[in-house]
């Protein structure tokens, strides 16, 4: 079956753009909806603060939208970029870029809705802490975007790197695998980071004096929740930059694709689980600031244990890449 490579690349670019924007629209919409629903609740509790709450809601939604704006940028680039070379590899790279960005935007979009919603509720509960809450929300939801930024970086590298010298036959699967690895692994991490950020906004509103400790533990918790997406980034870098020996057999190609899928799917659960741990720790630090050190240690140990499944997935991916 011979397909004109030019057409193949165009098809892949269109499909990739569609996937990037289609999936990228999912998460941010849910997150923004959550923010708005909590803002409604907050306004009904304290209508006299409706101006502040409304402003805060719009700012929170604007930040939550950035993941899907990343997806929009990648989709537009995919639709209008002229491919320098027309071959199977370029097509796989475009498709992989779309998959990485589309899947990668889901988690961050949903996650960054939580701090927005919780800070709106917090303003109704504790109007004096409005500026602290807005600052905390901005930091929290900006850090939530990290997995989406990783996904965008992988997508940009896939689109702009020159893969001409690589042998086409197993490498096409490696490029697709790189997209899946980063995109899927970013879902859990983005969502989990959002849970921690939401809990921190709630905590600040309950005890505004604890804002320093709460923000510190939120940042550490979010950073550790992002570890699965860092594993996804690592695997997709290995898949993109390692030169694989040429082979026309199907099994090496499938091993590379499976390596990407393995780390990707394996990162979803640990990301959300780590987010739950961080959520619990942050929530209780606000109520019991004296024991912030103990809570942080327990959080870290708990996250390390719940992360072990992501590490197993990464080990299997490395075996698939280097041994099989």
């Amino acid at each position, binding site marked *: 079956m011979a397909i004109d490579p030019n057409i193949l690349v165009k098809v892949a670019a269109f499909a990739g753009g569609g996937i990037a924007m289609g999936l990228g629209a999912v998460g941010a919409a849910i997150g923004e909806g959550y923010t708005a629903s909590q803002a409604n609740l907050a306004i009904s509790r304290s209508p006299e603060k409706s101006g502040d709450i409304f402003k805060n809601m719009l700012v929170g939604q604007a930040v939550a939208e950035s993941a899907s704006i990343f997806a929009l940028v990648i989709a537009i*680039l995919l639709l209008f970029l002229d491919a320098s070379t027309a071959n199977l590899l370029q097509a796989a790279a475009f498709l992989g870029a779309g998959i990485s960005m589309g899947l990668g935007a889901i988690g961050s979009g949903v996650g960054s809705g939580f701090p927005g919603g919780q800070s709106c509720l917090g303003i109704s509960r504790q109007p004096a802490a409005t500026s602290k809450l807005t600052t905390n929300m901005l*930091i929290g939801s*900006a*850090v939530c975007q*990290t997995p989406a*930024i*990783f996904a*965008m*970086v992988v997508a*940009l*590298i896939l689109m*702009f*790197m020159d893969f001409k010298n690589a042998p086409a036959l197993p490498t096409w699967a490696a490029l697709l695998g790189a997209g899946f690895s980063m995109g899927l692994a970013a879902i859990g991490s983005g969502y989990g980071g959002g849970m921690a950020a939401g809990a921190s906004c709630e905590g600040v509103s309950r005890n505004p004096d604890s804002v320093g*400790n709460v923000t*510190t533990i939120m*940042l*550490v918790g979010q*950073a*550790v929740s*992002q*570890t699965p997406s*860092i*594993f996804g*980034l*690592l695997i997709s870098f290995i898949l993109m930059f390692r030169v694989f020996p040429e082979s026309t057999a199907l099994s090496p190609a499938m091993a590379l694709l499976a390596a990407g899928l393995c780390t990707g799917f394996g990162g979803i659960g640990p990301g959300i689980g780590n987010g739950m741990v961080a959520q619990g720790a942050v929530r209780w630090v606000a109520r019991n600031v004296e024991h*912030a*050190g103990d809570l*942080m*240690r327990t959080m*870290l*140990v708990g996250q*390390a244990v719940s*992360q*072990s499944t992501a*590490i*197993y997935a*990464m*080990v299997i991916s490395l075996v698939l890449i280097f041994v099989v």
Partner: protein
Amino acid sequence: MDELGLVHQLIIPIAGYKITINLEVILMTWIVFIVLILFGVFASRKSSLIPRPWQVLGELLVAALYQLTEDALDKEKAEKYAPMIFALFLFLLLSNWLGLIPHLQEPTKDLNTPLSLGLMGFVIAHYAGIKSKGFKAYAKEYFQPMFFMMPLNLIGELAKIISISFRLFGNIMGGSIIILVVSYLTYSVLLPPLLNAFFGLFVGTIQAFVFTMLTVVYISVQVK
């Protein structure tokens, strides 16, 4: 777009091995060193009860970071480790901000810098653990909860180095790639300064802080 992934390297062949030195990274690291040493000299020179601006800045930074260290460790250990934590934070902060100046690059953009700092933190944390608990109690922790969990615990410990260093590397390098691509597409009009402010100042500060805090907490997990 040819700069994507380009590194200037000095390769010295010695006895069949190739020693590769990334020249730009070393130059940038030295710039950070010099600025930090100058800051230290200015902040501590002619210190007096009525402080001058540099002294105020230095004292504010030291006090804030010392408090964070003491929250995570106890008082005695905080006094011991706070200078290291302080140096680490300032080095990372300045490294991440360096990319704001045209023609300079963040040393943390090269994986070697975060990886060696991550290894340093790992070694210090485990040294502190062995020293405070004794080697037997330290080694016993690897066999918790069951003796056959040892390899998995070991992999989990090693994965900490990967996650801490790739977190910094991915954020800083990701930011610089996004800035590079956007500058190329928009001919450096309007958007790149905003992106520089976000990725350089904001993300750079947060990641420097997160790296430092994680190093502190890894030490505190080992000693308790």
